């Protein structure tokens, strides 16, 4: 005889509908936001990438946001400000 079992995962339509933002169009005068997670040399490597993009005419400037703790996600206000100011935001994931 078959038994009825609870499936442990919520079928959430809103979660399934997650879509990515359209790809950013890079311009020579655009600003790149850099999110430095505070880990060793994170800022240096992100700035090196931004410098190369500027040299290649893909951006005009960059601004660095350094998280107060590598373990905590960026705050919602900082997130919104970066999104408003930046053509593109770069960060590193993990270590």
């Amino acid at each position, binding site marked *: 005889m*078959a*038994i*009825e*079992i*609870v*499936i*442990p*995962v*919520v*079928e*959430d339509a*809103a*979660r399934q509908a*997650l879509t990515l933002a359209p790809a950013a169009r890079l311009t020579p005068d655009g600003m790149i936001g850099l999110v430095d997670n505070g880990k*060793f040399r994170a800022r240096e490597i992100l700035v090196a990438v931004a410098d190369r993009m500027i040299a290649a005419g893909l951006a005009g400037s960059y601004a660095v946001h350094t998280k*107060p*703790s*590598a*373990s*905590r*996600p960026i705050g919602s206000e900082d997130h919104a400000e970066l999104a408003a100011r930046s053509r593109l935001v770069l960060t590193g994931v*993990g*270590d």
Partner: protein
Amino acid sequence: MSPTGSLPTRRFASHADASRYFHDQGWTDGLPIVAPTPDSVRVMASAAGRAPAEVVGEFPPRRRSLSVWQAATYAVMAGCEPAHFPMVLATWEAMFDPRFNLQGVLSSSGGAAILAVASGPGAAEIGMNAGSGLLGPGNRANATIGRAIRLGIIAGLGVAPGGFDASAFGHAGKYTFHFAESEPPPPWSPVRVRLGFARDATTVTILGAGAPRQITQRTGGTPESILAAIATSMRTPAQNVTGHGSYFVIVLGPEHAGIICEQGWSDDMVRDQLADTSKVTAADAARAGFHPTAGPDEEGRYVTARPSDILIVTAGGPGAAWSLVVRCWTRVDGTQPVTREVVRPGVATGGRLTVADSSFS
């Protein structure tokens, strides 16, 4: 809401088939599960006296939330008894406290597990182990309560190893890491009282924690010698908290706790001594590749843990004078321990009386 809470159901030919299917879907910790029938989940959920649809917490990074019904489902899967469920729910509530930084704890490559220390009469009533082998196998409450949390993390929050859980290694505490405090020898107070709760309350204190390290000091016979051994373990340079400050749970075994209490040392004295003697020099840290940024003290040493960031717990079994050092997986700015009262239906307690000067409150 559907008759089975917020979750769908499916028919299987047998419990074994369901367990196999759950494993194939990535909803388990690798061990067989108890297949959750609607009736078993209903009984589990009712043990907390809360509405099944009540949302216990949100987890925005995965766009998930966790209801009482879901938590009950994972508790059934883990093998919990209904009497265990209030402790499960209190643990979830502590985890969703923003101070804990659940996203960081669950995702870090540092491989944190969720250590949970239960204190109070409710822990003994549900049979939690506070003695020999408390972090090992053999006790259903310790084994299944922590497992209910991990199964909920995997299936409910969608956080699985190799995916959102980026643990480089992980450790056995990621299966279960719950244990109970032994009431300390007089005149010490138990954890819940030191953290500001009534003596008749039952609490759970959680920490995002690395693997435990068992240490010994069997020849000194003094508080100073015991604490020196513990401090030596705390200040190991090759951990990413070195020189920056972190949280520690120090579990004193019965021999060590007895010596320290008999010789008149208070909890404050123990924590002050550990904070002072666990400091590291810049050279210690540099040899392990770390470069402390906070200022050193007048002797040029950097903090491993402040007194308020250390929790002393008495537990464990007798032996050759052992204690246990558990460190937080990250620095003090990345997380915070959290304590919650375990609310048991029909049991009135004095609740929280004060907010203690401790990061573990």
